[in-house]
């Protein structure tokens, strides 16, 4: 029986707001501390800084949980002919009905041993490695950063030999520390990236390419204004392409020249060249559903079959991943093979795409099963392969659960973590005068310094456990 009125609810909320306990500590100071931390990690991910879940990987360095990519995704190749290896609990797909079964989640290293390798967290010269994406089943594209403020170089790490080779240096075109390189994209013939000056009021960005085999980086050009609000980039044999925050996809010849808008791309965002979507995959919450997928090379538009009650649906050329209620929803673009996967994803939350072998996408979800798996293992996130129905756990929440996602522009094929790290509290001092807000009313204004603390990751820093999904054991 409904025995309460709306007026009671209104009153309760208003009263609760009035009676809210005084917040601990100072607001302005912690906001300031947070912002300075964000700036240090913004170099490779400013597009994500306003968005994205931030997870910490090593020594306090955080990476955005963005999606990013392999080879520009000709994602047609995955087919139903794939024979899954033994799966403890395969989902059943029944025609138009939606099946639903929790997958058994074991660490990715057990589920797909071939995808896992261990790489040093630092180069011989002390530069920190940051994984970007896989270039093949055995090659990882890494950036090496000599310090937080310094743009570094790109390296290719061979997981077979355990050796890394320098692909190119990443130049700093603008003097001073205002310039930050952003996402790197691995195309078929070229590796490309863009940079910007996120801490200045100007809207400005530039684009760079280097041949896939390595060499000297070449600046393609620069843009200003709305064109500089880059969401994602792609690189073809002759052009640099990018989408912008307001929607729309642009192109600039690699030989230089004026940028031009690609016709018919109003409201579209790159997913991974040549694929574009009517949602920005790097959006804050992943709310809303993708309703179409456009191949910008052929001009073909595919409508997504969006089921009722789904949210955050994101589709590659073959598979879509989203949330339905408290479960993950997985289906093909046309709505077939639809299933919900309890234990993954969460109501209102987003899922993201990762690039699997040959450009096909797999799903990346939060793990919501309380208490973990039967073995006591609790992953931070779960990679879900829609073809086999297998789920591989990423990270280990009982160790603090930090993990990183490769920082490529298109959906990455890399997820990684530092198995040795742990969480500790780190404190610093901020000026009390910058903290006018949270003292009880009537209390005297604070003076001097106030101690402010942050939970940061410590330990580790030696080795990353890397899952490269380009090594998924598919037989095409």
């Amino acid at each position, binding site marked *: 029986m409904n025995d309460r009125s*709306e007026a009671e609810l209104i009153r309760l909320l208003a009263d609760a707001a009035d009676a809210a*306990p005084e917040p601990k500590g100072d607001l302005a100071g912690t906001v300031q501390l947070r912002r300075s931390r964000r700036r240090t990690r913004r170099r490779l991910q400013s597009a994500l800084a306003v968005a994205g879940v931030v997870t910490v990987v090593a020594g306090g360095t955080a990476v955005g949980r963005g999606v990013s990519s392999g080879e520009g995704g000709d994602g047609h190749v995955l087919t139903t002919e794939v024979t899954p290896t033994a799966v403890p609990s395969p989902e059943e797909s029944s025609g138009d009905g939606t099946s639903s079964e929790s997958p058994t989640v074991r660490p990715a290293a057990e589920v797909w041993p071939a995808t896992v390798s261990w790489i040093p967290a630092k180069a011989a010269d002390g530069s920190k490695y940051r994984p970007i994406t896989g270039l093949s089943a055995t090659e990882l594209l890494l950036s090496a950063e000599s310090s937080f403020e310094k743009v570094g170089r790109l390296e290719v790490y061979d997981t077979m030999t355990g050796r890394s080779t320098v692909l190119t240096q990443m130049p700093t075109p603008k003097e001073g520390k205002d310039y930050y390189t952003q996402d790197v994209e691995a195309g078929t013939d070229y590796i490309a990236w863009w940079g910007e000056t996120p801490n200045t009021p100007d809207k400005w960005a530039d684009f760079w390419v280097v041949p896939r085999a390595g060499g000297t980086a070449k600046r393609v050009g620069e843009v200003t204004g709305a064109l500089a609000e880059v969401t994602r980039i792609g690189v073809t044999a002759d052009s640099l392409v990018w989408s912008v925050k307001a929607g729309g996809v642009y192109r600039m010849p690699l030989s230089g020249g004026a940028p031009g808008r690609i016709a018919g791309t109003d409201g579209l965002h790159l997913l991974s060249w040549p694929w574009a979507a009517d949602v920005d995959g790097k959006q804050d919450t992943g709310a809303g559903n993708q309703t179409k997928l456009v191949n910008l090379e052929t001009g073909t538009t595919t409508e997504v079959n969006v089921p009722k009650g789904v949210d955050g649906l994101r589709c590659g050329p073959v598979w879509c991943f989203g949330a339905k209620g408290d479960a993950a929803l997985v289906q093909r673009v046309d709505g077939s093979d639809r299933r919900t996967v309890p234990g993954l994803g969460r109501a209102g939350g987003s899922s993201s795409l990762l690039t699997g072998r040959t450009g096909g996408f797999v799903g990346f979800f939060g793990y919501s099963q309380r208490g973990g798996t039967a073995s006591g293992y609790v992953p931070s996130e779960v990679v879900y392969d829609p073809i086999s129905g297998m789920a591989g756990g990423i990270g280990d929440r009982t160790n603090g659960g930090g993990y990183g996602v490769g920082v490529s522009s298109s959906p990455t094929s890399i997820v990684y973590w530092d198995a040795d790290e742990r969480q500790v509290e780190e404190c610093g001092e901020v000026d009390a005068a910058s903290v006018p807000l949270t003292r009880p009313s009537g209390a005297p204004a604070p003076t001097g310094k106030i101690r402010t603390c942050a939970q940061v990751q410590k330990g580790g820093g030696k080795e990353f456990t890397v899952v490269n999904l380009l090594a998924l054991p598919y037989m095409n």
Partner: protein
Amino acid sequence: MEFTDFVAARGSALYRYGYVLTGNAEDAADLTQEALARLGDAWSRIRKKDDPEGYVRTTMARLHISLWRRLRKERLVAAVPEAAYTDDYPGETGLWNELKGLPPKQRAVLVLRYYEDLPDDEIAGLLGISRGTVRSQAARALDKLRVRVAPAETEAVR
């Protein structure tokens, strides 16, 4: 207006909004800080053409229903020694505690409708969901809380 002035002027109200959104002081502070940090980063742009308060309230609502809070690892807490706090609203406990049982999205819809007093189409735009979803989430939440919808409002709400 400078960003620090905005924080000084509006921080307390935003924190209270965060408190009804999240139901506890720690998450409210976290949410307020994160949303303000994002506003600070975008300040030069927002100040010019947008409404900073609207931006930050929208960010808070969206963060609340996103994966962000569950996954983030860089939880900032301040260590100013003051009196102990309780996270529970000391007044009427039944309904307040029952609100805690709602999924984040349902709670956000109720807060936007009954605390922020927004119409359903604005709530839909703000959360990036359809009007139908706003209505169904609200109906489900109200039913769970055993709140009856006044007949006069039934027309408008359903």
